[in-house]
């Protein structure tokens, strides 16, 4: 496959400052490195406190206080082969040139982003105007209609007010909004949490079809492993601010390596199952005071002595697999 890297996160460590006077920091991300390639759907999976939402904020440059990046860089590689340091450029630069055009971000509960007193089409026109003043209203509406048709959305939604549309429809409208300028990288942060099963499928299909047609990079952030099973080519599993495993979809679900991934996959309830399953004992750690060594060791059935003392190394295996665990470290 002829893919190249479009976005690269290198050794990112980041904290939330809670009280600088008392030295209270919450270590949200600890030494995370990921390469994102073109024409792939890559999922970032993790439960509460895993740091996945924080990570994506850093990825697209929205790391503002109280979130500060301690170490590491994020590089964006554009179509014309320039390399932009996302972690260093100003907010103005980001807003004008990067956001919406190179990277688009769909926040959680994006359906609530629409202005309730404006018709949908007027909001689209506004966004267009903000980014490209040369286009007039008629042209804009044509472009928007094209977009809707391409995405399979009903044109009648354009003339409606947000509250008249169902939650799922609003979510899809917001997705359309973020795809307006054909960004190369789209980050969808929990796009289907607030909707029902049937609408969820519609939204995911929308994203999947768009990605297949445009051959761009879709980053799916979700705590729901079923969404990852449906969408992803590759999955990055996070726990307590660390990347614990990276692998292809099949690898993660059928041959999980890291103990957390193993237990997580084993705890998922599949359709038609009545047999008793076990979840993971305990709770994710408090990131104000994370456990020493490996952050998963208090809940890990395979914990060894070294796990309690030293943080495990990042082990890179063949075919792109990555595990951060002492079980796989070379002696």
């Amino acid at each position, binding site marked *: 496959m002829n893919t190249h890297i479009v976005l690269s996160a290198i050794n990112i460590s980041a904290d939330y400052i809670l009280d600088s006077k008392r030295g209270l920091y919450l270590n949200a991300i600890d030494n995370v490195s990921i390469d994102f390639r073109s024409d792939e759907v890559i999922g970032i999976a993790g*439960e*509460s406190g895993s740091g996945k939402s924080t990570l994506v904020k850093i990825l697209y440059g929205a790391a503002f206080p109280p979130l500060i990046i301690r170490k590491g860089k994020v590089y964006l590689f554009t179509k014309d082969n320039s390399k932009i340091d996302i972690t260093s450029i100003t907010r103005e630069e980001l807003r004008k040139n990067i956001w919406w055009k190179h990277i688009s971000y769909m926040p959680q509960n994006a359906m609530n982003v629409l202005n309730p007193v404006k018709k949908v089409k007027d909001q689209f026109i506004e966004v267009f105007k903000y980014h490209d003043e040369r286009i007039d209203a008629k042209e804009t509406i044509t472009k928007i209609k094209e977009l809707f048709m391409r995405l399979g959305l*009903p044109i*009648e*939604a354009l003339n*409606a007010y947000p509250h*008249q*549309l*169902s*939650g*799922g*429809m609003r979510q899809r409208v917001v997705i359309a909004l973020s795809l307006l300028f054909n960004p190369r990288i789209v980050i969808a942060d929990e796009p289907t949490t*607030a*909707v*029902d*099963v*049937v*609408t*969820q*499928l*519609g939204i*995911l*299909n929308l994203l999947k079809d768009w990605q297949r047609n445009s051959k761009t990079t879709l980053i799916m952030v979700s*705590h*729901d*492993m*079923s*969404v*990852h*099973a*449906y*969408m992803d080519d590759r999955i990055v599993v996070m726990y307590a601010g660390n990347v614990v495993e990276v692998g292809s*979809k*099949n690898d993660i*679900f*059928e041959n999980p390596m890291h103990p957390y991934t193993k*237990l*997580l*996959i084993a*705890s*998922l*309830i*599949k*359709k*038609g*199952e*009545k047999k*008793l*399953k*076990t*979840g*993971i*004992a305990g*709770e*994710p750690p408090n990131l104000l005071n994370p456990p020493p060594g490996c952050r998963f060791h208090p809940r890990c059935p395979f914990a060894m002595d070294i796990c309690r003392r030293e943080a495990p190394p990042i082990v890179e295996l063949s075919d792109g697999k990555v595990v951060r665990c002492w079980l796989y470290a070379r002696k």
Partner: protein
Amino acid sequence: MQGNENSLKVESVSKYYGYGLLGLKKFKVLDKISLGIPLKPPTIFAIVGETGSGKTTLLRIILRMIKPDEGVVKYKGLDVFKLPRNAVSWYRREVQPIFQDPYESFNPLRRVDSYIFDAAKRMAKVDKGSIEEYVDGILRYVGLSLDRVHGKYPHEFSGGELQRIAIARAIAARPTLILADEPVSMLDASLRVNVLNLFKKIRDDLGTSIIYVTHDLATAYYIADQIAVLYRGSLVELGPIDKVYENPRHPYTQLLLTSILEPDPKISEKIKPLKLSTIELKEFLAQGCKFAYRCPYASKKCFEKEPPNVTINGVIVKCHLYEKS
């Protein structure tokens, strides 16, 4: 103060909300819902529906938090909304709620253990001497302990822990029926199983029936014995869960079952494309079947006439397809 039947019966309950200018136009959030939940033998009864199906409203009606506009709710044969004053506290002892968001369930300014102690003292009438032991026992049953919980406020716990405390509070009152509204949807996937297993234990060890309201069919199948499927305020299918799962009759149930995403890497090959709703209000106001706009089998009759309730093989389906001519 006892009724004669050992069940909770919802009989033709409807609830309207007004909209439009002055709220004069009405749409039915719940439309003539009838179902029966057995208390003996203890049963886990799942009520499944999307957001907007009316399932939370139904639960709030059973909890006497909302009054129905039509119909009756009978607990052990007694009309829940016509109970004399002292019977209301009896009802509140028999029936206990668990809400979806544990952080909304507890007053953030109150210590969490005070709720359990209240429930133990006032509901289960545990005497002063044994109350600490009792509360500790209940907390251990849900996987916590009095030491861990004593004197702490809700924000000091994680979502999973707090929900387990909410469950402890509910069983501390020694209820006959627990009403759980999406109890695990706000919890991490890896913790859901633990809580759901707890529900199974509660049914088996304590003999308590549970109404489990959810949008997640997979978890419903995992723990429930019976299932009721709601669509836009109407009850479309009702029956034992195995039967409904193996042979879903109503087109909506079929759609739901085929749309569930599973944590199975081969799932994308199994799913078929489908038609989504654009404007919800239209469906709520439909004269005939509310699912007609999206139903692959819809006929003219479906848009005009409300479908009848047909019983097939122990399952009740509300659909014209099964009408006995």
